[in-house]
């Protein structure tokens, strides 16, 4: 029985140590950032890998999510005779929640794992050590550009997700089901507040961007330099990022609703 609690304690201590190490990595990145901003083309390169290459998956999933929201929402709303509210439902669901959250989850799966695997592999093949020995800081050269790319990319991806999702909802609601187009947009505009819903969604995606990128970078940087270590780290990136996104989403939502 004692060993059971001992194991829990040891596991907890390990998690807290890792949290501390990740936080330290965060501040190290910040302190090296001015160095890597001088060569912004490194960050642009990473925006290409995290952002541009994620576009397809984001656009396709957003379109389907929007269409499903439109369908589901319509069948429920029509029972109450308020099927025009479909636009509001789709827009609010996407802008407030699904846009930032689903984007972050897809980002963790698409870009996060790539970051972890890439950095873990560079570590395993001593590329990071080699860089250090060449008097080039791997944090400034490799880690910081990926961090900033992640932060810039995530809100843009989330905005694209929400917009494409709304278009998906529109496609189902207006041409397919036959909800009045004017009602669709006007109800949406009357009930979606810019400073409240859209800005809050944007803030959420920014926070998720920081969380997902830091987790992916840390897991890669911290991975044991073996094939097995890197593959485990990649799995952990997805699991930890997803949990972090969902947990943070709850915290942020409750905070935003209370203000």
């Amino acid at each position, binding site marked *: 029985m004692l060993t059971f609690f001992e194991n829990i304690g040891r596991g907890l201590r390990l998690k807290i140590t890792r949290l501390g190490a990740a936080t330290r990595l965060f501040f190290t990145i910040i302190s090296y950032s001015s160095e890597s901003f001088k060569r912004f083309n490194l960050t642009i390169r990473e925006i290409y890998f995290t952002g541009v290459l994620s576009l397809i998956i984001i656009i396709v999933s957003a379109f389907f999510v929007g269409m499903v929201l439109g369908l589901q929402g319509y069948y429920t709303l029509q029972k109450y005779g308020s099927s025009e509210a479909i636009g509001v439902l789709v827009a609010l669901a996407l802008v407030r929640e699904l846009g930032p959250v689903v984007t972050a989850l897809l980002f963790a799966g698409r870009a996060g794992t790539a970051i972890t695997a890439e950095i873990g592999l560079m570590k395993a093949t001593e*590329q990071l050590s080699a860089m250090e020995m*060449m*008097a*080039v800081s791997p944090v400034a050269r490799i880690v910081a550009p990926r961090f900033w790319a992640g932060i810039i990319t995530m809100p843009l991806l989330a905005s694209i997700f929400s917009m494409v999702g709304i278009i998906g909802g529109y496609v189902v609601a207006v041409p397919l089901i036959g909800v009045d187009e004017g009602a669709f947009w006007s109800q949406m505009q009357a009930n979606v507040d810019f400073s409240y819903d859209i800005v809050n969604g944007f803030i959420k995606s920014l926070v998720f961007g920081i969380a997902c990128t830091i987790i992916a970078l840390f897991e890669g940087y911290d991975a044991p330099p073996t094939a097995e270590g890197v593959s485990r780290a990649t799995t952990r990136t997805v699991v930890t990022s997803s949990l972090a996104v969902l947990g943070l989403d709850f915290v942020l939502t409750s905070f935003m609703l209370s203000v």
Partner: protein
Amino acid sequence: MKKDLIVSIKDLAFGYAERQIHRKINMNFHRGKVVAIMGGSGCGKTTILRLIGGQIKPTSGQVEVDGKIVHEQGRKGIYELRRKMGMLFQHGALFSDLSVYENVAFPIREHTDLNEAVIKDLVLMKLNAVGLRGAHNLMPTELSGGMARRVALARAVALDPDIIMYDEPFAGLDPISMGVICDLIRTLNDALGATSIIVTHDVTETFAFADYIYFIADGIVAAEGSPSDLKKSQLPFVKQFIYSEKDGPVPFHYQANEYISDLGL
């Protein structure tokens, strides 16, 4: 006049929490020499290179490079020292997302403001020195192990370092590549007037071209001397190592119970 002694290690001790690796190591590396550090697997040979490069800090004692104590330098100081060093990693450690050309150009681009034409000349010169000028467009994945190591060597000497460190340069190479690397170590060392520090356990090659050899065992320098001196050495460990005897001071069997009792007889 530069000091003759470029790297010196004094009373160095290093270990991780659970395992002490070095207890007391004293070594001196003179300018222009090719010095080998030998020892069995896991005796901390590579760790010495990392200590010289300042990637880890000693528990006690010190490493002095070019008159400066490495672990007392700040980040800037260490980077300053590292610019005098080139290191060849065991598997080359080429940047897998860059071409051969870009790999060799990397340290030049990072540390100088030379224009592209000069960089091109420099890179092709370095690649020519290792015989791979024709391969400059290839990606690291398209190279064989021996070629990758030669490219890595070209990268390590890109900025004409004073100290070139080799981590297991012969591991996993065919005899021809091995001979090529041996030859390159010697010629590059003499051409650049640098000091080479080689960590290895390949006896024949090392004895053929090294100027001085250190043997490490049990966290101390067990033996040292020129290859001819060491060949005559009567130390049992050195003899076992040089003539690759399977049993000796380094036992064949890992510590175990009595064989009979383990078999349950």
